[in-house]
């Protein structure tokens, strides 16, 4: 066991923990936090993979390293999108919880065109 294997296993553990949080919490902000934990677990796993690929005088495989950097930025924009939607949801619904009945959201008012 070395530091790289440790990072990979930690990544696997983080993914499982995040998945648990995402499924069991109904508070949307908690789901967003859990989603970020899963994401960072995947990135950590990818980082361990990069480090395993050290060769040719490079201390890591640059391809996964590069993908992780862009991945973190995209995960942030997903978080920002989710938080902005949550704030509007909270304004409309008055609660930070995800409603139980998905069908309830669909009883539309009838007129669609202005």
């Amino acid at each position: 066991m070395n530091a790289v294997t440790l990072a990979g296993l930690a990544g696997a553990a983080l993914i499982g923990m995040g998945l648990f949080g995402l499924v069991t919490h109904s508070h949307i902000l908690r789901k967003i936090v859990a989603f970020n934990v899963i994401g960072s677990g995947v990135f950590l796993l990818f980082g361990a993979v990069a480090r395993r690929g050290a060769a040719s005088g490079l201390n890591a495989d640059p391809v996964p390293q590069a993908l992780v950097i862009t991945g973190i930025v995209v995960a942030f924009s997903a978080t920002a999108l989710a938080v902005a939607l949550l704030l509007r949801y909270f304004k409309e619904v008055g609660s930070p919880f995800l409603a139980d009945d998905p069908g309830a959201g669909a009883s539309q008012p009838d007129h669609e065109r202005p």
Partner: protein
Amino acid sequence: MTLSFGFDLSLAVLTLAVAGYAIGARESFASVVAFISYGVLLALVWVRLSAVDVALTEAAIGSGVTGALLIGAAAKVGEGAVDAPRSVRGAGRLLTALFCIATTLGIATAFLSLPEKAPTLAPLAAEHLPSTGLGNPVTAVLLSYRAIDTLLESVVLVFAVVGVWTFASDRDWGGRPESPGKDRPEQPLTFLGQILPPLGILVGVHLVWTGATEPGGAFQGGTVLAAAWILVMAAGLRKPPSIEGAWLRFALIGGPALFLGVGVAGFALAKAFLAYPEGHSKAFILVIEAALTFSIAIALGLLALGAPGRKGHP
């Protein structure tokens, strides 16, 4: 067990424990605070993996800006009413737990079953590095070998900004997002807002400039610049911009548009989309990185600010 492995093991255990608290905490505010600490620890893990670039991005974005965003949201939405639908309980919770443990074990098994001699693109990346004129293989991957992904990721940020804006109310369209700070920021924050941004800009520019040869680059530099911009607004030194501003729109799309333009010019100048003229790669890449850094900083800042509100506010 060596000393350094002992350190890594303690760091990993601590990181997992804090992540566990972020998932399991009773209150969402505590969960968010734990998540921010978790980001800092994770940045340390990345340093231990010799990925300074990633550590920097993780510290600035994963912990810093995401943390600010989540704290702000937690303050606004609160914990919710007691009689609200609570989280999954009982047998469902146990089953979910078992499923998640199985998932972790599956991923761990897959990871441990990987071939002893890891397949890697490092030799190929190193071999072609001279033809890009760059010294940093990560930058070569981002701006040359896999430039299409970087281009489209920067476009994803623009999509996300449009998405965040469309979550505004109709009547707030054209307004400014709410300032990230209080109306009357405290003295120390104003002080920080004056001191840190010039430093942030220096660091950001430095990251882009050295990114050609050493760790750094557009995404890393952009995150630092964005953090500096947000701090300036939080300190009340600058107002958030109006989303209808022509210059803001231009700044937002300028980097990706230039990148795309150079890519299309590659058909004529270099015989392939997103290829650079032979011998001039580095110059083109530096120009693209500069524009991209600026636009990424604008996009990240706008994402952190959120949907516009308060139209007509001076």
